[in-house]
């Protein structure tokens, strides 16, 4: 199975599993491990006597992880057949295309700075979102036109909710 960690692409296979004893290969390297999912979201791995605890934060899709070890934070992506399919389908689209404005966190719309149909320039702020006594401005990445504005001032928004569509 294809797994990405940051920019590195690895091929991971489960060689065998007997209770906690797991053998896994990552590219050409074979790991003989004792693996336990002990706490909610924590994975204990013993390898050559070393004790590692990996804290897993799984995305909603179940395929993208943030993994914290003692001193590092790693972004890990599982690329299964479904993900590969989606990736292929998406290939035609430019990754740089920005077709919507969204906020990564929940909050409240403090002010909408544009109107539908407006032409805006790269870097122009289009909406102000407020959360936890702090305001954040959201900008467009390149020159474009405001297609639809889906929220208005005072609205409560969820994280990842589309606020404005662009064209």
């Amino acid at each position, binding site marked *: 199975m294809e797994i990405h960690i940051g920019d590195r692409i690895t091929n991971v296979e489960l060689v065998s599993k007997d209770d906690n004893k797991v053998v896994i290969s990552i590219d050409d390297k074979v790991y003989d491990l004792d693996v336990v999912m002990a706490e909610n979201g924590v994975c204990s791995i013993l390898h050559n006597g070393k004790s590692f605890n990996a804290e897993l934060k799984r995305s909603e899709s179940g395929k993208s992880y943030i993994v914290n070890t003692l001193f590092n934070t790693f*972004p890990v992506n599982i690329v299964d057949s479904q993900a590969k399919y989606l990736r292929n389908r998406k290939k035609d689209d430019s990754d740089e295309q920005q077709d919507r404005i969204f906020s990564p966190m929940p909050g409240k719309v403090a002010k909408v700075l544009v109107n539908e149909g407006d032409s805006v320039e790269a870097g122009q702020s289009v909406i102000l979102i407020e959360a936890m006594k702090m305001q954040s401005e959201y900008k467009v990445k390149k020159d474009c036109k405001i297609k639809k504005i889906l929220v208005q001032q005072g609205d409560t928004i969820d994280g990842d909710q589309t606020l404005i569509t662009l064209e």
Partner: protein
Amino acid sequence: MIKKILVANRGEIAIRVMRSCKEMGISTVAVYSEADRTSRHVFYADEACCIGPAPSKESYLVIDNIIAAAKHFDADAIHPGYGFLSESAEFARRCAEENIIFIGPSPEAMIAMGDKISARETMIAAGVPVVPGSQEDLQTLERVKEVAEEIGLPVMLKATAGGGGKGMRLIRHKNEIEDAYNTARSEALASFGNDIVYIEKFVKNPHHIEFQILGDNFGNVIHLCERECSVQRRNQKIVEESPSPMMTPALRAKMGEAAVQAAKAVSYSGAGTIEFLVDDHQNFYFLEMNTRLQVEHPITEEVLGVDLVKEQINIANNLTLRLRQEDVVQRGHAIECRICAEDSDNNFMPSPGIIKQLTEPLGIGTRVDNYVYEGYEIPMHYDPMMGKLIVWAVTRAYAIKRMRRVLYEYKITGIKTNINYLRRIMDTNDFLRGKYDTGFIEKNSDFLLKSTYESTKDETEDIAIIAAYMDYILNLEENTPKTADNRPVSRWREFGKRNVLRI
């Protein structure tokens, strides 16, 4: 004696106050906004009362609603915590009118310390050093120019009613004066409805050191030594410690005496804090007084072995101070880190949301003042601080190591936090050596903001891959019907028992 206290606050400070109330056998009343029904302070209190919609100015800041709740539940006293109405003289006065004890100083003391120019005047009269500057309202541009010349550039132009960095301008050169004067005034007018300004000598990267004081209703005032609060980002404290690594016994005695004089000058009763700027030559200047409990009060509690909330309540009960100045003896060293729901890797963007999993650090020398719990949704309406880690240890060096251990033990998923950022502060050379001032965060920003992900291509990186992979497999396998109580361990058990895995 006070039998019931309404706590006019939320979050960790509400729980902090209620813990001491519970220990004193005093009943508690929580007030909460509509966004806070599932907030722990509502559960923790004996009684609870909804005081309005989510926005603070429609709930936690509405004096009438809080007074009405206090009267409805027959509370003898109100503890305001910090923030919200804690420094509102109007609120303190209303409490007095309604015959409710306000746990804090008199409205007069709050007013005297609330206006910056009057506070400066009072301090000068009391013989407390203040930053050199104007002792008058500056009504004209000409007067500003005169005074700036008198004091010598650089100077700070400040709004009398100011706070939080608003209505404040640094003037380095003569030709900046006019522009600064105009923008500061208009900003002050917009923010505080008042455009009066004054001038202070600019102290570059000072130490921010504050003294805790306690005063009773009989004129006794003592100080409880200092807290070093120079680790600040945009005027927000992040890490505090006590004692200050730059403090000497002689300077402590001198600053402590000044803090007591400052409090006595306004007949201060209750717990309060005198903030000082200290330069590299140990010159110190009164900055302002906070007429309430501070966020960072626990480090004083740990080093001195006191419960400041209990002392506040005793003072409100008209008792004389339990401690004399000579009883105040520092032991060991305490550090506090503020844990915030914010994404320190992404410009400290706030990160409200549901806490999926939480493991708090425990054990020797560890104190956690918290309010969140597993499954709790941190609302977006309030401050991102969700708790404080406080460690105590015999020495400063050991306290830093303990804080590292404690930050390591703290596990939280579901939201983003500043924990990695705090860890890096504990690894910063300037912090380790105790050689830092308010320029610390800016000076060390490259080190503090370095990306947490660095491809190591080593064992640890492979471990991360393996952990994610195993969790993914486990998740795939999880299509069996679930019982009401399925827990991760039983999940793994099931998985383990199968022995051979079909992928």
